[in-house]
C-alpha cells in the first residue's frame, strides 16, 4: 500500500518544476506548458486525497480543472498568435506593451 504522502510528494515536485519553468523560461509557449504541469500536479493531489479520504468531490474538482486547462490553453495560444502576428516574437521579456 502506497502512503498518501508519496503522492503528495510527487505532486509537490511536479508543482515546483512547473513553477521554476514559469519563472525561468523566456518562450511564452513553454511558460504555458509549465502552467499545465502545475495544473497536473494539483490534479494528482486532488485525486490522491479523493481516494484516500474516500470522497468523490476531489475527482470532480480535478475534472473541472481539466476543463479550465482546456479553456486556458485555447485563449493563451490565441493570445500568442496575436502577439506573434504583430511583433514576430514569443519572448516574454519583449511583451511590455501594457507596462507603464
Amino acid at each position: 500500500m502506497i502512503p498518501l504522502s508519496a503522492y503528495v510528494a510527487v505532486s509537490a515536485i511536479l508543482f515546483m518544476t512547473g513553477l521554476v519553468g514559469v519563472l525561468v523560461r523566456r518562450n511564452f509557449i513553454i511558460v504555458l506548458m509549465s502552467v499545465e504541469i502545475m495544473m497536473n500536479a494539483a490534479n494528482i493531489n486532488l485525486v490522491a486525497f479523493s481516494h484516500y479520504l474516500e470522497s468523490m468531490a476531489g475527482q470532480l474538482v480535478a475534472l473541472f480543472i481539466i476543463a479550465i486547462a482546456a479553456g486556458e490553453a485555447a485563449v493563451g495560444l490565441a493570445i500568442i498568435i496575436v502577439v506573434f502576428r504583430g511583433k514576430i516574437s514569443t519572448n516574454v521579456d519583449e511583451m511590455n506593451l501594457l507596462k507603464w
Partner: protein
Amino acid sequence: MVLVFFAYFALISIAAGVLTVTLRHPVHCALALLALLTHVSGLFILLNAEFLWAVQVIVYVGAILVLYLFVLMLLNLKTDERYFHPSALYFLGPAVLGAVYVIFLLMRSPFGGAKGNAPASAVLLEGDTYAVGIKMFSDHLLQFEIVGIFLLGAIIGAIVLAKTPKPLDAEKDRL
C-alpha cells in the same frame, strides 16, 4: 506490484516534467509534456479514477497537447540562444532547497482527516464513471453549469482573438 507501477509512473513523470522545463527546442518540450501527461494518467489508474484517466488522455493528450503542437508548427519558432531568463540561477537554488524541505515535511505528515461516503469498495461496485456522474449531476450541478459557461466564453474569446483583423473602411475606399 502496485509499488513498482507507482515508482515507474512517478519517476518518469518527474523526469518528463524536468525535461519539459529544460529542453531547448519547443517541440521537444511538447513531446516531453506528452510523456508527463500520459504517466500522470497512469497515476490516476492506480488511484481508482478510471474516468479521469480517460478524460486526461482524451482532453489533455488528444486536444490540448495537439493544440500546442499545432501552434508550435504554425509559428515555426527559431530557438533562441539564451533560452533561460538571465536571473535563472537566483530562482533555482532557493527553489531546490525549498522543494527538498517541503518534501521532507510531506513525507512525515500522516494526513488524517474525516472520511467521506465513497470508499473504494463502493466505487468499484458500480464503476468510477457512475460514481462521478451521480455526484456531478446531484451535488455539483451548479459548478458543472458554470464550467459550461466558462468554456463557451473561452471558445468565443479564442475565436475573437485569433481572427484576422478586417482592414479599416478608410483604407478600403482608397484602393
